[in-house]
């Protein structure tokens, strides 16, 4: 009886973990182009994991939503703006310091066009492996004033603005993730928010 209950609880946990995804946020269903606006924060500041690092996304109504499952149109250009509020922790693999798979092979960092970011300045990456997209995101300086503590962060708080664009291809679900092991307090930085959809990884639903 006890064994059956234990197996049932473990199965329930695993199934729940696997199948419980955050809500899908529709960025646009209109083919052609879409604007995807994101922010990365050092700590979400709210339950269930107030100290977890996370991405947030702006929905069509202009509200910040805590989700990493985003719906965008197929065969379109996605213009991405990332408001980066977290500090630099560096890339584990400096090979990821170059923006790839983006239009023009270039990203804009606070209005300045860059073909590469020194690996030590990176805070996170925005990477869609199956689309060949990888963009390193510059971190906020340690001494920057007015740093954000609780989400959603605002434009008046210390941040770095990173802009780039990429093309979506055919329809499908594409996983994306951050390649910086940025889960503070977890072994080698790879636990918690790095291993949970809704925080530092998710899906791009191309429709």
């Amino acid at each position, binding site marked *: 009886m006890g064994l059956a209950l234990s197996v049932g609880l473990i199965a329930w946990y695993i199934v729940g973990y696997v199948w419980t995804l955050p809500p899908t946020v529709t960025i646009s269903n209109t083919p052609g182009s879409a604007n995807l606006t994101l922010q990365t924060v*050092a700590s979400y500041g709210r339950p269930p994991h107030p100290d977890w*690092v996370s991405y947030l996304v702006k929905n069509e109504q202009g509200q910040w939503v805590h989700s990493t499952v985003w719906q965008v149109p197929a065969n379109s250009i996605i213009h991405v703006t990332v408001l980066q509020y*977290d*500090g630099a*922790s*560096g*890339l*584990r*693999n*400096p*090979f*990821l*310091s*170059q923006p*790839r798979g983006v239009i023009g092979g270039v990203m804009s960092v606070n209005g300045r066009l860059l*073909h*590469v970011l*020194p*690996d*030590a300045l990176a*805070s996170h990456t925005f*990477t869609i*492996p*199956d689309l*060949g997209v990888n963009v390193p995101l510059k971190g906020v300086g340690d001494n920057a004033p007015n740093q954000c503590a609780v989400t959603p962060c605002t434009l008046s708080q210390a941040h770095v603005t990173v802009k780039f664009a990429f093309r979506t291809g055919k329809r499908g679900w594409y*996983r994306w*993730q951050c*390649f*910086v*092991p*940025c*889960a*503070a307090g*977890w072994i*080698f*930085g*790879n636990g918690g928010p*790095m*291993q*949970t*959809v809704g925080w530092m*990884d998710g899906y791009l639903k191309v429709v």
Partner: protein
Amino acid sequence: MDDRRMLTRIGIVWAVLSVIGILGVIFLLGPHMPPGRESHNASDQTQVNILLSVIMTPIVILVWVVFGYSMLNFRQRGEQIEDGAPIRGNSTIQVGWVSTTATIVLFLAAIGTYELVEIGSTASGAGAAGGQGPTPISVPTDHPLQVQVIAQQWQFTYRYPQYGGIETFSLVLPVNRTVQFNVTSLDVIHSFWAYQLGVKADAVPGANNIAFVRTKETKSFEIRCAELCGLWHGYMSARGEVVSGAKFSAWIQRQQVLNAPAMHYVPPYRKIYFPQPYGRAG
């Protein structure tokens, strides 16, 4: 029916079915046996799989024939009867059984060991393309192409130390060339599995795991992580390609240009990068 007649019947049925089964394994199943023939190592593994199947076929058929014969001729009708008296002390059967199975097992062990340590001067390259740690038992003598496989949650990248240590997202290899994979990891344990090439080697942080392969055909191949490594383990896959020598040269030159900005920050080539699996965690 006397025992001799029964054994003769079983023997004839077994012999006929075994010949048919072995021919089927060689000519029908053999061409589709994994992992294929895209590398010499894969070919060797396929040959061994065929050999194992050929050895196994008459054994399986013998079991099935005896089973079927017994079902047809010795099945119980009507009331249950008592078990027959146990047979003890048939030294001919005992010696025959032990010596036959021991011969088969020792033969398979010898074949497996040969495939594992096959010397580098043969056409197959060296070894069974399984990771043999930092000091392989056998090393090829024809100056293999060095390719470092770097695993990170959740993607493989590759470095070519003989081409300035260039790092790439894709794995491209020249045909008819012995390749030495130096497999390592930047975080947890992964496993580099180039299925159609017959290569599989664990990627362990702080360790250099060496595997050899000799390419044979210009084709693409599947790359997967074969060690459960976290949330996106199932997505840690890609396709690699074996191309002609000229195409490989052009590709590697293009990679050197495309990835030049990042290579400014990539550390010098080393067999391992984090002796302790330490990263710049936030």
